[in-house]
């Protein structure tokens, strides 16, 4: 299933909470995209999660936050059209508010 995360991993437990569910696809949007940035304390956690989760992040939100040049390898970027595709491809989605 598709887990949509719009919260900064430094401010909220949403990402941690999703990772504990075991496996699936994650789309980082809004302040959630900070989890995709290299060099921070969250990097090892997201890297480790890549074994069980496919990680996507929304490009317009990455660009807005000035982190386009530091997106981690293995994070797949999508635009709003790609967001729609992800929702369509996954029978179930959940926004972790």
């Amino acid at each position, binding site marked *: 299933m598709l887990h949509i995360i*719009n919260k900064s991993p430094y401010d909220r437990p949403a990402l941690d909470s999703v990772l504990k569910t075991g496996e699936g696809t994650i789309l980082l949007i809004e302040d959630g995209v900070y989890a995709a940035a290299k060099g921070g304390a969250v990097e090892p956690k997201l890297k480790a999660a890549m074994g069980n989760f496919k990680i996507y992040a929304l490009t317009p939100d990455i660009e807005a936050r000035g982190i386009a040049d530091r997106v981690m390898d293995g994070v797949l970027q999508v635009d*709003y*059209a790609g967001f*729609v595709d992800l929702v369509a491809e996954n029978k179930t989605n959940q926004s972790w*508010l």
Partner: protein
Amino acid sequence: MKFAILVSEGPYTHQATDTAYQFAKAVLAKGHEIFRVFFYHDGVYNATRLTTPPQDDRNIVKRWTELAKANNLDMVVCVAAAQRRGIVDDGEMQRNGKDATNLAEPFRISGLGQLIEAGIQADRLVVFGD
């Protein structure tokens, strides 16, 4: 494919409505259908025609109404959430003894059942909130 969208936060304060709008546009651009956009919690504040954002800023209410009119979208505001937060149409004005309305066209106020129905009828329901 048939999509439904739930918007749970008000305009400007949270990016949720911005993302929901961009998502809705992308859904339509891909040739999918939008069964309904439902506004709950503070999301009901998207439906007031009384906002006047700064000239150099996006006009969130206007954007929703234009998208809805151009694509004949069903934009539903939850009545219970609207009553708590002061979003009023003609019917609500009369029922609750108010002296003004603020609902923008083509939003309509209806029950929370419309959200459940959207979940049942659409192939996908996506939530935008905080």
